[in-house]
């Protein structure tokens, strides 16, 4: 276990250069190229003096390297600074305002993708060599190639506009009154003892998470198929079969379990894709998450907010991949660090 601890420590230390590098890239390209948060903020009529005052107030009059060092110094103290536009709220607060929406979408999309991947992948493996197998393989590739906005619009049109089964935008019905405690609507509804809130939140999640889930399921389909075929060919499966254990029990009791390990590794790697896919899903479904928020703030050159969000994303990605690695290490004792 000591080696695991050392490994974790090394991984944690590795996130520092990652955050620093991404931050540096974003920091400098944003400031060197034209665009200025002050101008986007003040009215068109603002005077030159007013703009200068505001620039000074925001520290934008200092030389670049000093701004950079100031920012790093703040970051070292866990201070992401304040937004440069619209009320100058603390960046961390802005991030927390938008983060729950993204987490809800990501978790739901992730669940859909894994379930769908397991289902199609194992089906393809069991029916190996048949037309169904070939079809499912093509499906796996197609799913990956689907353009999220296209799929999303299709769902909106069919299930929202024509069939009226699901809401097509937003996170909840405005008439269901659930107090905001954590920002996660499902958790809040449970805390408030409002079962309708949970149903409503899930109902709103349906189309976005299906869109995101389908697109991300392609990789799992392929992976589950490959790894199940591998496990099915192993000796212990043959031994189980020879003992007359029913096929379904072998499949669900033993094979799937063993085939799941590579899937777990993939989950860590997929997380970055999940976040990227969430940006497009959020845009298509008017979902007030971190992705759309970032895109909007880049447009206004809200330097501090963009930097903070990038740092946050980087930390998030590293943390998740670390967690997956640790889980993996516990599950598969063959791995030693």
């Amino acid at each position, binding site marked *: 276990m000591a080696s695991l601890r050392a490994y974790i420590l090394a991984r944690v230390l590795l996130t520092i250069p990652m955050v620093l590098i991404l931050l540096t890239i974003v920091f400098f390209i944003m400031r060197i*190229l*034209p*665009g*200025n*948060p002050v*101008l*986007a*903020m*003040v*009215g*068109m*009529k*603002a*005077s*030159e003096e*007013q703009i200068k*005052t505001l620039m000074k107030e925001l520290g934008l009059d200092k030389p670049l390297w000093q701004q950079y060092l100031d920012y790093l110094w703040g970051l070292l103290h866990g201070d992401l600074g304040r937004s440069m*536009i*619209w*009320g*100058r*709220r603390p960046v961390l607060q802005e991030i927390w*305002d*938008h983060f729950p929406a993204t987490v809800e979408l990501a978790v739901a999309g992730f*669940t859909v993708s894994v*379930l769908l991947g397991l289902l199609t992948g194992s089906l393809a493996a069991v029916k190996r060599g048949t037309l169904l197998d070939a079809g499912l393989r093509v499906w796996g590739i197609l799913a990956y190639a689907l353009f999220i906005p296209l799929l999303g619009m299709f769902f*909106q049109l069919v299930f*929202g*506009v024509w069939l*009226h*089964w699901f*809401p*097509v*935008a*937003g996170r909840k*019905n*405005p*008439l*269901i009154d659930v107090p905001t405690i954590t920002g996660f609507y499902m958790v809040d509804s449970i805390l408030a003892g409002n079962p309708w809130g*949970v*149903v*409503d939140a*899930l*109902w709103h999640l*349906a189309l976005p998470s299906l869109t995101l889930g389908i697109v991300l399921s392609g990789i799992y389909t392929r992976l589950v198929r490959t790894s199940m075929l591998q496990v099915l060919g192993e000796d212990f499966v043959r031994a189980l079969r020879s003992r007359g254990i029913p096929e379904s029990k072998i499949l669900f*009791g033993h094979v*799937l*379990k063993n085939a*799941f390990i590579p899937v777990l590794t993939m989950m860590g790697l997929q997380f970055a894709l999940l976040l990227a896919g969430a940006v497009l899903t*959020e845009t298509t*479904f*008017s*979902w*007030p998450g971190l992705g*759309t928020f970032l895109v909007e703030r*880049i*447009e*206004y*050159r809200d330097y501090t907010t963009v930097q903070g969000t990038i740092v946050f994303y980087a930390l998030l990605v590293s943390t998740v991949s670390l967690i997956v690695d640790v889980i993996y290490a516990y*599950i598969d004792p063959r791995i030693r660090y």
Partner: protein
Amino acid sequence: MAVSKKALIIIAAIIVIAIIAGALIMMKKPAPQAESVIIIGTTDKVTDLDPANAYDFFTWEVLSNIMSGYFEYEPGTLQLKPALVESYETQDGGKVWILHLKKGLKFSDGTELTADVAKWSIDRVAKIKGDPSWFVLDFVDKVEVVDKYTLKITLKQPVSFYKAVLAVPTYFPVSPNSYPADKISSDNTAGGIGPYRIVKWERDQELVLEANPNWYGPAPKAKKIIIKFYKDATALRLALESGEIDVAWRTLNPSDIISLKKSGKYNVIEGNGAFIRYIVFNTKISPFDKKEVRQALAAALCRDKIANEVFLGTVEPLYSLVPKGLWSHIDAFKEKYGATQNLELARQLLKKAGFSETNKLKVELWYTPSHYGSTEADLAAKIKECWEATGMVEVTIKSAEWSTYLQMTRKGQLPVTLYGWYPDYIDPDDFLYPFLHTGSNRWLGNPYSNPEMDKLLEQAQVAPDQATRAKLYEQVQEMLAEDAPIVPIFQGKLYAVAQKNVKGIVLDPYMLLRYWLIYKG
């Protein structure tokens, strides 16, 4: 592993059942919408709830519903009527304004509105120096308390439209016990003295208003207003169609408005807007420093095609910077260049400027892709097509994000740009002075300067009566059409699309929706 797999299956099953159950229930009976609740959807956003720093259309709308000012517009008209003041008088040729406040008005925290509070609020705006602070700083010399309910505002010089300025949300008084004296309080929901108060505020998601129990005026018809924020026009329309919202307010796509109108399922309310769109030529960049070039492009502009094809008739061609419906408006560009595209005149002018089919005028036309809605790229493409119809013009279209666009414009780097204007106060001055007065158009890169024009604009600012001012503004508009540094394209109409049972939506050139008039019946 086995346990987690089982758990996974159970979770999945629960989710699937819940979604299906939810879908079935919701299909059967639409969400219970109480009679007294109105849900309004918008693609705008509330930026800053502090009146000392708020400076955009939608935030002003919200502020106008949770606060009020000394004067306000009578709904449906452009007439100003006293609101928080009982009466008022001006002295010294309009230089001094004496406001007699209504007595016994209380903020939601129990503080009474007195002249002290009113002075404190105005001083607060000046001290904070927020974005709209020029409404105070540019005009006001000093504010004094005469007695408990009487306020005396002394201006730097007489301003003929100061009453309209006094009506802007920047002047809305707030309670000293709820707002800090020298700091912006962006998420402050305390409000002022208004028909509604904020009970829930989740940035970018929803804003919930309830009728203010302390409100002195008639009780609002809808007890509760919920505002839902959507990312784009598509989402807004979908929300209306699924019954999630009662009113789809700004801004639907032109095609959505047309098709929703055609469907007959909704009330489509139309009103005259006072927002305008125009082309700006940087007169310091060659060849746009030549008057003939600007005039030629003004003549070659096809306003009718733009209005009908890009905006499907949801906007109106505009021939002056002063919008139609506002006093002193004249169709200056129509008189000079004709109502529709005038290719012959355009070609004549281009030839005069030294261009021809072989030596084409090269135009770099800039637009910004999201700030003015998703139709912007189509607008730029259409203008290119119209200008190129002369056979003597070659247009390259370029685009930049909003903050980049503004900065490059201000630095005078962009030759031809597309901009839009929402009025600050409803007066011709606000549609002319910021564009044409030397120095005031610095935000456009200081392109145009004409001493004669400056003189007319300055005279009109202080002239006491409307008739004199109207005459001056007519001259200004004629000079504008002649010099053509800025060419108007169209004037927007306002549209609100509501469910059939929603009544009382009043749209007028003041453009802000009054929530207290809306009801279900």
